[in-house]
């Protein structure tokens, strides 16, 4: 038996040879072997009784799974605009130069590879990187040099200085959730005392809406799941916090893990679920151990397991699934596909997850923050919760603030706070724009700073990126469009092709080859993506560009050359090979790159 076979056997054993946890098996094998060789894929497929193409298809879908060898040290720089503003690109160039590497390539000795990855959720303490999946924040030239030395010396990752891996919480403003002390079990005890019906009634009275961005009323979702036919029900915690610029769920999972898991248990109490799943984004895998510890603690205390709180038949437990670098899995139906060990392709809805979710069972999918808020409702009652915030947005909202401000971090505000107030509190000056809600959100211009954070005005899943007067808003949007083109799942043509075309057109402008015709092309693509994409990724991909063209049009026009049309490529350069082959250099062997007025 070869070592690879032993690894495969161990991973299969751990997951009980179940095809529906294929992704978890591959994540574990990736961690053990470093990449997923062809023979390994074949063996996994054979052992699970799956077509080989299915296994390779899953492995090929996720950014953190590799079908070709990568460096033994795999360094990924977070490439969100906020990391770039903090100097990530220069640090990556420094690392590559020192190690004699080019980005995206594996060093000849197979020791190291360096590349970029989508936002790693460290916007308040960037620039950040992942080394073999482990997050390192607050990079600077000195630390990058130290990292070079550690890699050259082939020091194992667990022998690197521990303070590299320390992640700060940076909680700057506390309100109802972050400001209250929580005794594990308190909320659950109160909800059990109310009975399942009484507890759901409190949830209804609270008007709690989903904090993941869509703002669907949580009690309606729970009730639909409870009433759906099927004895086995599931509660899923969506901890796939992939929206660029968002990191509040990371802080909640670090500081308030009990509330989050208790929130899941509260949901299980209301809907009658037995199974709980946390889908933790791969970038946060360092949180897994502490979350497992909280789960174990809660099992010992009788808050998870059989007969929770002494109620016969209230059986519920939670397991953690890891994501592997796919933004689209934050969409709930793609997340369910991923939990079932498939590619993260969003499902066609209806049916909705509340009736046909995980493995076809009625499933509640809630955001981390939503679940944590449920504890407040159980402790203090639905009406008290409904009395805070605004008319249509009850309670508080956690904002992840990053970018050009003195005090980046997590801020908890009652809904209804004005953007201007938030900017004042975080110490932002000469603000040109704020991107609220992440790449897919809204670009807010100064004349709108009186608008309020609330579902009825500026809704947000939590990202709040600040750009001062020195930033080019066109470049901000271009970064986001690159992100969407990279993260498109490839299932539907409008998104797969449309995001790539939009990216190429913005790149053309960035290179100085833009013309008025390209702005028309951009607007056509925006419309196409909005109207014809299969899911929210494609339909929100053009948002930063739509807002940019409306509110910051000169930032785009600045990149236009004053001509009807300019090709994106070098026409004269395209003749170079033919000139070389023929030895010609006469005027006919050249093309004017500018348009000719040939009449």
């Amino acid at each position, binding site marked *: 038996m070869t070592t690879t076979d032993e690894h495969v056997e161990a991973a299969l054993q751990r997951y009980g040879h179940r095809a529906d946890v294929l992704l978890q098996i591959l994540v574990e094998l990736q961690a053990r072997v470093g990449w997923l060789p062809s023979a390994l894929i074949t063996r996994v497929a054979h052992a699970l009784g799956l077509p080989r193409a299915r296994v390779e298809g899953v492995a090929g879908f996720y950014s953190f799974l590799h079908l070709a060898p990568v460096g033994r040290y795999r360094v990924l720089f977070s490439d969100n605009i906020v990391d770039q503003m903090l100097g990530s690109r220069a640090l990556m160039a420094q690392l590559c130069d020192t190690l004699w590497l080019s980005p995206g390539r594996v060093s000849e000795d197979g020791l190291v590879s360096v590349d970029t990855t989508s936002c790693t959720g460290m916007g308040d303490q960037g620039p950040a990187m992942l080394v073999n999946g482990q997050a390192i924040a607050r990079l600077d030239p000195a630390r990058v040099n130290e990292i070079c030395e550690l890699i050259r010396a082939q020091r194992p990752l667990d022998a690197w200085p521990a303070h590299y891996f320390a992640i700060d919480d940076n909680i700057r403003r506390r309100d109802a959730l972050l400001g209250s002390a929580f005794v594990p079990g308190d909320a659950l005890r109160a909800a059990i005392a109310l009975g399942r019906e009484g507890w759901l009634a409190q949830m209804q009275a609270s008007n709690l809406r989903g904090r993941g961005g869509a703002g669907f009323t949580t009690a309606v979702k729970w009730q639909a799941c409870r009433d759906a036919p099927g004895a086995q029900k599931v509660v899923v915690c969506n901890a796939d916090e992939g929206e660029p610029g968002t990191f509040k769920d990371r802080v909640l999972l670090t500081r308030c893990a009990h509330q989050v898991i208790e929130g899941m248990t509260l949901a299980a109490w209301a809907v009658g679920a037995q199974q709980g799943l946390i889908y933790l984004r791969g970038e946060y895998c360092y949180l897994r151990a502490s979350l497992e510890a909280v789960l174990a603690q809660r099992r010992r205390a009788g808050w998870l397991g059989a007969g929770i709180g002494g109620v016969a038949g209230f059986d519920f437990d939670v397991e953690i699934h890891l994501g592997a670098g796919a933004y689209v899995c934050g969409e709930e139906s793609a997340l369910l596909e991923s939990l079932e060990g498939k590619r993260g392709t969003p499902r066609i809805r209806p049916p909705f997850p509340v009736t046909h979710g995980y493995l076809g069972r009625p499933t509640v999918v809630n955001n981390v923050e939503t679940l944590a808020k449920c504890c407040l409702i159980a402790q203090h009652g639905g009406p008290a919760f409904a009395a805070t915030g605004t008319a249509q947005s009850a309670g508080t909202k956690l904002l992840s603030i990053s970018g050009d401000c003195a005090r980046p971090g997590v801020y908890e505000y009652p809904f209804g706070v004005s953007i201007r107030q938030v900017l004042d509190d975080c110490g932002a000056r000469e603000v040109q724009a704020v991107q609220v809600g992440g790449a897919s959100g809204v670009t807010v211009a100064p004349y709108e700073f009186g608008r309020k954070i609330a579902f009825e005005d500026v809704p947000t899943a939590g990202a709040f990126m600040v750009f001062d007067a020195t930033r080019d808003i066109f470049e901000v949007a271009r970064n986001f469009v690159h992100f969407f083109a990279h993260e498109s799942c490839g299932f539907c043509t409008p998104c797969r092709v449309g995001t790539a075309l939009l990216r190429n057109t913005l790149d053309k402008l960035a290179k100085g080859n833009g013309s008025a015709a390209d702005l028309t092309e951009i607007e056509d693509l925006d419309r196409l993506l909005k109207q014809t994409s299969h899911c929210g990724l494609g339909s929100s991909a053009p948002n930063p560009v739509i807002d940019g063209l409306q509110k910051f049009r000169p930032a785009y026009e600045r990149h236009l050359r004053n001509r009807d049309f300019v090709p994106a490529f070098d026409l004269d350069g*395209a003749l170079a090979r033919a000139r070389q*082959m023929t030895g010609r250099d006469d005027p006919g062997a050249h093309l004017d790159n500018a348009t000719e007025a*040939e009449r």
Partner: protein
Amino acid sequence: MTEPRKIRLATVSLAGCFGCHMSLLDIDDHLFELAGKVAFDRSPLTDIKRCGPCDIGLIEGGVCNAENVHVLRAFRANCHTLVALGACAVNGGLPAQRNHLDLGRCLTAVFQSRPGMDTGAVPDDPELPLPLDQVHPIHEVVHVDYFLPGCPPSGEAIWAFVSDLLAGRTPRVAHPLLHFD
């Protein structure tokens, strides 16, 4: 009563096979109607060598060499409305299959390595247009107003499209006339 001004129409085949032009002739009886409404400028049908001021230009084929670039730019400069007609103009089509090959190796294979060509050389006559390293769809070189895909688009599709243009309607070729093969 003066007759309405005839619409001036120019057509050309760049890196194409003239299949789209053959399809244009396939509009059969409508040719008489077309001839009544348009005057042809540069076109294989007239043998006029340079495009003059026109209302509509129909371009078949992609852009594979320097001459294609000059001709295409002249069409753009002279035509109010420029149409990419057929698969090659829209996407590069069959000629673009060389895009993944190195041009130098293509030239060597054609002019030097073939049996009987062992003493040959890559032609260097300045009369000959130099090939571009890749074949491009025409919209990557000039702005294009409308696209009519198909290899070739059927006579029926071309007629529906041109009728719309002549009548001043935004062309709308719908299923089943619209196809990409």
